[in-house]
């Protein structure tokens, strides 16, 4: 029982950063921007979260700084990909490279450590305990005591869904992806929507990064995004950017990740258990592709 609960909690906290990043990517996906800089934005967010939290002693400012940090990357992306019309793929790859180098460098410059900065002075993002629910055996243990950012992610999922499919912002955003010429000729510059979508993904990746370094664990480690940005990209493409689908895939990923670790108890080599999430993603892709095929044929 405890193990199951642990697995579910593991799933949730494993899914959160991916979910946040992927939601960010969803905006750019609909706006027709090929954004692979989520990895870098996560990492930058994680770093600035720790920076802010450590120096001000307030996790809130940490989160704020995380968002600003990721936004900074988004701005560079906008400058090159939207303004100077540089290839989006190059911009993304370069930004990821840049993020790794820059965070590592600042880590050394500011905290004069390399690798990990972990310190009691880093204020973590609090977790939310729900008085009455707590009592309920399993459900309580899951719903209560989750990190605040987990609930933010849940909120973000629905908010994103609402924004993209029910507001004029969303209508224009998707128009920018479907047919920028139309959007331009109806008086809304599509480049503006592309820029906005990048800013949105900056904000969300910033939050995701903050969760990595102030939520789940309470430290910054070089390259701690550890490929989560790429997973979120896969999740987005997998479900064509649909926020609900993204949430699902992220959970699937978080779950299989924990499951992998658990399987080690049962004579499976660590390397194979570590593959589980990626294989799970492939399987998901298989079913998704099959479904799309059916839809197309009908």
């Amino acid at each position: 029982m405890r193990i199951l609960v642990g697995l579910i909690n593991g799933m949730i906290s494993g899914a959160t950063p991916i979910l946040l990043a992927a939601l960010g990517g969803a905006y750019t996906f609909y706006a027709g921007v090929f954004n692979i800089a989520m990895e870098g934005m996560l990492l930058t967010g994680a770093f600035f979260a720790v920076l802010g939290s450590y120096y001000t002693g307030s996790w809130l400012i940490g989160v704020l700084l995380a968002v600003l940090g990721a936004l900074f990357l988004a701005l560079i992306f906008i400058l090159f990909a939207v303004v100077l019309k540089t290839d989006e793929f190059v911009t993304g790859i370069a930004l990821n490279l840049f993020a790794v180098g820059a965070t590592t460098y600042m880590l050394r410059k500011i905290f004069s450590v390399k690798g990990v900065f972990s310190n009691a002075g880093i204020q973590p993002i609090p977790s939310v305990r729900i008085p009455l629910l707590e009592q309920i055996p399993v459900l309580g243990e899951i719903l209560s005591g989750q990190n605040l950012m987990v609930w933010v992610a849940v909120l973000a999922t629905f908010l994103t869904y609402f924004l993209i499919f029910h507001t004029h912002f969303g209508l224009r955003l998707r128009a920018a992806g479907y047919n920028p010429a139309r959007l331009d000729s109806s008086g809304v510059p599509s480049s503006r929507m592309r820029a906005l979508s990048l800013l949105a993904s900056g904000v969300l990746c910033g939050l995701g990064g903050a969760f990595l370094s102030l939520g789940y664990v309470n430290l910054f480690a070089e390259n701690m995004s550890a490929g989560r940005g790429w997973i979120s990209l896969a999740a987005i493409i997998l479900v064509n950017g649909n926020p609900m689908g993204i949430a699902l895939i992220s959970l699937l990923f978080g779950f299989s990740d924990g499951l992998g670790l658990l399987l080690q108890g049962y004579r499976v080599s660590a390397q194979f258990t570590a593959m589980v999430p990626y294989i799970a993603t492939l399987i998901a892709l298989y079913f998704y592709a099959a479904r799309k095929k059916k839809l197309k044929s009908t």
Partner: protein
Amino acid sequence: ACTPAAKTQEQPKRVVYLINGALGDNAFYDSGKAGIDNIAKQYGVETRTIECNFDAGKYEPSLRAAVDYADVIFVISYGFEDQLKEFADQYPNKIFVNIDTVVENSKKTITSVDFIEEESAYLAGVVAGLTTLDTSIPNVNPDKVVGVVGGDVDPVVSAFVFAYENGAKSVDPEIQVLKKSLGGAWDDSARGKQAALQLYDQKADVVFQVAAAAGIGVLQAARERQLYAIGVDTNQNDLEPGYVIASDIKNVGKSIEDVYKTIHEGTYKPGQVLKYGIAQGGVDIALEAKVQVLPQSIVDKVLAIRQQIVDGTLKIEMYNNQDVWQ
């Protein structure tokens, strides 16, 4: 020939610390760096550190750069032992000191510093075993379970796990040791934390981390669960005060300083294998912490066993490629 003559033979001017990985593990590599910095202070030599960041493409050029630059090279050569041997043979009058593994070149010029991790890891196991049995310690459950999280499944980590398990079982053969490996994700502390959480869910009271940066996640898991962890390589007892009950220390810096001292005094002999166990101060267990969790009784027991090891009355079984992960 420790005479003025030896003294007059020109002193080394430049020292390189060449590591396969990267600084910042709060541990192994960093402790070596500390030693290097002390050398620089003490003897006023120029020192440089070359990190290869585990990038195989960098090993040979780095070695080349090192021999071009320095006359003494302290090297942590996981992964490029072969190239190291070649270079050592090519440059017999440069001093190569290989840390943490035994590398022997045909000209026998490489001196190796070999740490006996098993001794300290064994003590870590003892600490864990005694702790899980002592239900008087807050939150310790009656089940006799302890855990360990390794960054990878390579021989070095396996050696730790092997001795740790022996130590724990020496306390009570019924103690069960659960293991998790991060399969090489040394820098993914979130993963490290999740692994530890799973161990705690499986009733472990103490988790030993052998996972560098990812290991910090393990320590934080301990705090979250109000349970206990054992640190590695440096004294991490105060990283999460009250939850890190001990640390398995590997004092790379000391060994480097010792060896350099001999070089400075001209007593250095190439081609040796220097064993650094507890007795030599190469490895050790640190039990003192700001927030002391271990009852004195346990501390005493552990120190007693430590003493036996120092005296040589207790021989610790060395790791020898057994499969320790099941």
